[in-house]
């Protein structure tokens, strides 16, 4: 007969994937109960009613669940999603790093030259110049270090730096919210939630069992990404065609759509191996770009033309996703994954 203590622990174990519970749950429950019960019926009855899994115990199960859901050993289906999530996080960090490189390159002239870029959210709430500006630009430039740390496999360093980098923007947003000077209903919250907070949370996917990142291509992607993004934009500025420049959410939609378009021939070719993971990655990135576009529509409530442009950008992203979606669906079935630990079940 199961005790209250056992039921409480089994509830915690529901965090784990079903296939894993099938293999290990009874064993884990037995070990957990062994750690509590004394063999004295009276004492055990009291313990069963009064005790429960400690927060450290719950955290250990939650940590195991993250590792299993995001690409640990024996997780054939989840492996594809774990890899895709890790690549999507790196891609978002790459975008941050590219923006930060631009800040370094055009430190003073940046806002004048490419004024369509979102200013750091902090500038909504604080006067320009002084210590605050230094803090915001330092936080922006920190993203280069975060990106490099993750690309070279220093996951813990990357996580700590990223957690620090998002704090100044959060503080500024809270201040703007509390003092009522947020310019649009959501202000810069969508940017902070989708491009700052979400990647930091998703960095849990970079755990010990995650396959090592392909260091060289990602590091080369930083200068290449800078040239690919800023080259055309600066050319538009220089030729007096800055009216064609999209806003930041629009730019993200266009970049993701172009990436889907570039990837589509490989995704549709059955001969190319391993394309599905990139298709899944692009779908995750399209979800981020699309959500940001959708949430920032409220910035243009008084401008029907820009609303139409924004909706068109959303449609373009959806069409681009449709190009790679079939390949992404296949990826979950055919991606090679680490072996399943069923041998242990014996």
């Amino acid at each position, binding site marked *: 007969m199961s005790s209250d203590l056992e039921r409480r622990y089994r509830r915690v174990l529901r965090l784990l994937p079903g296939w*894993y519970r099938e293999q*290990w749950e*009874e*064993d*884990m*429950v*037995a*070990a*957990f*109960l*062994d*750690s509590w*019960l004394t*063999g004295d019926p009276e004492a055990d009855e009291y313990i069963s009613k009064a005790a429960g899994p400690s927060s*450290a*115990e719950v*955290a*250990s*199960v*939650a*940590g*195991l669940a993250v*590792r299993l859901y995001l690409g*640990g*050993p*024996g997780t054939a289906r989840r492996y594809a999603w774990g890899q895709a999530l890790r690549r999507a996080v790196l891609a978002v960090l790459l975008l941050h790093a590219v923006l930060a490189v631009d800040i370094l390159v055009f430190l003073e002239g940046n806002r004048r030259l490419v004024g369509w870029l979102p200013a750091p959210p902090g500038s909504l709430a604080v006067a320009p110049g002084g210590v605050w500006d230094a803090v915001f630009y330092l936080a922006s430039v920190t993203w280069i270090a975060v990106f490099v740390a993750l690309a070279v496999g220093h996951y813990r360093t990357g996580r700590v730096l990223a957690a620090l980098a998002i704090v100044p923007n959060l503080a500024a947003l809270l201040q703007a919210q509390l003092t009522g000077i947020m310019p649009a209903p959501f202000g810069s919250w969508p940017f902070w939630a989708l491009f700052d907070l979400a990647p930091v949370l998703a960095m849990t996917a970079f755990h*010990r*069992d995650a396959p*090592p990142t392909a260091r060289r291509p990602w590091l080369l992607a930083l200068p290449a990404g800078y040239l690919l993004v800023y080259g055309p934009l600066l050319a538009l500025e220089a030729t007096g065609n800055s009216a064609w420049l999209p806003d930041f959410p629009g730019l993200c939609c266009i970049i993701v759509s172009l990436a889907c378009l570039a990837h589509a021939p490989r995704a549709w070719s059955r001969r190319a191996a391993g394309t599905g993971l990139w298709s899944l990655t692009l779908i995750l990135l399209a979800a981020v770009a699309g959500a940001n576009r959708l949430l920032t529509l409220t910035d243009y409530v008084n401008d029907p033309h820009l609303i139409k442009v924004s909706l068109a950008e959303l449609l373009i992203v959806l069409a681009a996703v449709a190009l790679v979606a079939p390949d992404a669906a296949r990826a979950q079935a055919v991606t090679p994954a*680490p*072996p399943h*630990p069923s*041998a*242990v*079940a*014996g």
Partner: protein
Amino acid sequence: MASKPMTGQAFFVLTALADGPRHGYGIVGEVAELSQGRVKLKIGSLYGVLDRLAVEGLIEPDREEAHDGRLRRYYRLTRDGRGALAEEAELRAATARVVRARLGQTGTAAAGASG
């Protein structure tokens, strides 16, 4: 590609199984004793280590025994596990020798400087 370095937890779990099979909570207790109370494995962490070691072929199930109406599964080292543990122990011992030697040298130098 070089294999990943063995974690402290994995090293202690393999050491706990070196002298014979043990069940889950038996491993937790043995690891606490081996580490003089410094490593207190939570059950979630233990099974994270166990399934990783199993996937790497370093441990395998030994037998199951009923205890108070519950089944306890015992684990044992595989041949590869024994080899990996011996290799890691040698590496750690070599590192410890270097540390002792350097501390000894520093101690001697410091004593010489102050004397």
